[in-house]
């Protein structure tokens, strides 16, 4: 049985394997298997899984890939991730991928789908127009047609007919995956010293590039290991990090936050893996509709979802309350319209509720963390040393 350190080491290797070795190995074992790359934030991976496919999360090159060619496609004022994705394209990292899905989260990702089309990458390119109408018979019906298109595209490649049974099986596996992930977050909320946020990040991110069955095993082992006491509690504040849902922060930044006196007890780094809150109905007669309904009715709050009847600031504060966090760190990628246009709304809510927060920008390849460390350290000290517990009284 692997130790926690060994599992984390493996996950780190998988998470940042920009050659997607494990996924390609998996595909090579069966001619009907397909690899479908998808951009952040969320796609229903169950659908790809049911069609004998593996949905691979494409999260850019981070700080692991030098960008040369990708910069030729983007002006300086556009976020960093699409240029590193194009660099990966140009360098052949996605060879063997059969298709690509671009969920509708912003104009940059939308237009990146067009760039993939012009470059002729993959056997299909699907811009997944996630509905902004949340009624079952309007947005739900449209969304179902969108998902059917994905199934048709995969069918053209591998001839695998997706039956309700296959879909229900996939739903069960991904329900389990979300439940296990949530369980780890819950344990960390209570005992954040047992595993660092960076380690958790690697574990969740590994799930973006390997079969869900394998990831579920990893998660079960992690849960077993972190249920035992390990590490020493330190005098740190508890924070929630928000804004990093698409272009990922470098792991160094996550480590910096924790080294500067914080336990990250909630985040939106890889929110696609935790998008659906709770289970999708695993026993319905029309499982594709059940997947659609889960999106309409059980999605988390996000900068890419129209929220008018369900204000995101209320949901953010509820989440913070549930996690017993002392403050919020708004960390967003530079030039990210969705995240940055949310900040005034979310920060006003913080001010109204007297919630402490700080804010900074990063890009996926940010390499200098000194300033951020000082900022976070000061934030942590200001709460630890000078503030009375404001909301939750969780200070010793």
């Amino acid at each position, binding site marked *: 049985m692997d130790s926690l350190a060994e599992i984390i080491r493996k996950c780190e290797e998988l998470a940042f394997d920009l050659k997607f070795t494990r996924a390609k190995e998996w595909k090579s074992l069966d001619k009907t298997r397909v690899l479908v790359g998808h951009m952040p934030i969320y796609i229903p991976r169950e659908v790809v899984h049911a069609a004998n496919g593996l949905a691979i999360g494409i999260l850019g090159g981070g700080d692991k890939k030098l960008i040369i060619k990708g910069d*030729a496609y983007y*002006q300086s004022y556009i976020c960093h991730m699409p240029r590193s994705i194009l660099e990966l394209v140009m360098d052949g990292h996605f060879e063997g991928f059969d298709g690509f899905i671009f969920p509708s989260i912003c104009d940059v990702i939308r237009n990146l789908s*067009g760039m993939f*089309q012009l470059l002729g990458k993959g056997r299909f390119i*699907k811009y997944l*127009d996630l*509905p902004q109408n949340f009624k079952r*018979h309007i947005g739900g019906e449209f969304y179902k047609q969108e998902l059917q298109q994905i199934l048709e595209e995969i069918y053209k490649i591998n001839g695998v007919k997706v039956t309700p049974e296959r879909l229900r099986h996939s739903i069960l596996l991904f329900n389990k995956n979300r439940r296990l992930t949530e369980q780890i977050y819950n344990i960390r909320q209570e005992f954040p010293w047992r595993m660092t946020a960076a380690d958790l990040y690697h574990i969740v991110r590994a799930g973006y590039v390997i079969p869900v069955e394998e990831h579920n095993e990893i998660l079960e082992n992690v849960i077993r290991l972190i249920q035992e006491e390990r590490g020493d509690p330190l005098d740190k504040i508890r924070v929630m990090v928000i804004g990093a849902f698409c272009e990922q922060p470098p792991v160094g930044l996550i480590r910096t936050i924790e080294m500067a006196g914080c336990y990250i007890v909630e985040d939106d780094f890889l929110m696609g893996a935790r998008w659906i809150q709770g289970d999708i109905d695993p026993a319905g007669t029309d499982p594709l509709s059940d997947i659609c309904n889960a999106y309409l009715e059980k999605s988390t709050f996000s900068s890419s979802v129209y929220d008018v009847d369900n204000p995101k600031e209320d949901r953010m504060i509820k989440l913070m309350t549930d996690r017993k966090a002392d403050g919020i760190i708004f960390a967003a990628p530079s030039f990210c319209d969705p995240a940055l246009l949310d900040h005034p709304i979310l920060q006003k809510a913080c001010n109204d509720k007297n919630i402490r927060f700080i804010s900074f920008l990063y890009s996926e390849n940010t390499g200098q963390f000194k300033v951020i460390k000082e900022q976070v350290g000061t934030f942590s000290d200001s709460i630890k040393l000078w503030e009375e517990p404001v909301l939750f009284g969780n200070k010793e």
Partner: protein
Amino acid sequence: MTKDVVKEKSMIIQKEMITRIFKDLSTAKETGKKVVYTFVPGNISELILSFDMLPVYPEINALQSGMRKKSGGFILDAEKHGHSEDVCTYVKCDVGMMINGNIGPTGEKIPDPDLLLLSYTGCFTFMKWFETLERLYPGVPVALLHTPYQEGHKITPEMTSYMVKQLKEEVIPKMEKVSGNKYSEEKLKMQLVNSSKVEDYIIKIFDTTKHRPSPIDAYFAGVYYIGPINIGFRGTPGAVTYYEELYKEILLRIEKGLGPITPEGVIEEERFRLVVEGPPNWTHFREFWKLFYDMGAVIVASSYTKVGGVYDMGFRVNPDKPLESLAKYCMNCYTNLSLQQRVELLSKCITEYHADGFLVNSIKSCNSFSAGQLMIMQQLEKQLEIPVGFIESDLVDPRYFSYSNIKNRLESFFQMLEQRKYILKK
């Protein structure tokens, strides 16, 4: 350059139309007219007007603020309220304008909205913009019309059906409630008859650039020409009159062999014919235009004039299918086209209007246009072997307009075009 600039009849008509709509808006609370905030791309003004409500377009207010040199201050005020330097400056300008009393371009107050119609077409930021407005105007109902993107380079029946359902079940009931009027399909059909006529005129007008010299500038003057259909007159008899008059004037110019009118008179020698991609800069609009007309550069087609609707590929509203027409109109706006469709459309413009070059004005704060522009440019250069140029500015943030930088780049571009002409002649 002819220095005498005589206001043509169409210009006077347009000015009167603008004055009238802002007057109506300023007295809306007294007259009891309800006010709907919405956006230019996918502006379903016919539907708004059929309920006897008045539309307000925040982007138009922002660009007007830019032209009146007020946007810089508004943007700074929005930034003081927590908005990032990195985001859309239209949004910040609008927020800043509200902080400063919401005074419109004519100096009269723009009334608060009674309905926020989020018909978001081709721009994801529109959604974020209205989330901001919804909080600045608490309690105002929001009607959302999600326009599917033409990712497969076409409009499918499923996309149309999704939009029609939203119109029937989300948008129209909210409009009925806010206006107190029942939906009248007959009234909407009548508006669409006018829209259809206007769409025909628009195509004829922008098609006149096939002539040499081109009688119009399809970018700098083009933004004025698309004014009436984009600021609330879609579907009105006034719009038909305006475009009828404008077309007559342009035909007369062709007859006389005249080039485009500029703020400093008529361009006497057409030296370069260009197709331009991207919105113009509004804070230095005159200086920006002058850089072109001083060099005898005429824009024979631009993508920006298609942002409120693309009619070049055959689409027209069909009054017999009113809601379907509104849906298809929204889906046909330029920034709702796939990149491949954009390349095809621009390629058609370059070829049919005999352009000498293709120029991108890349806007710092508009990802909807800017992301992918460099690839569009590469594709056109490769396919058509046409010289391409690239400049950068912003919509309404004066901090991002660098006159000398743009001038240097344009001069080099024009030199390249000149040289190419010389070589081709040889």
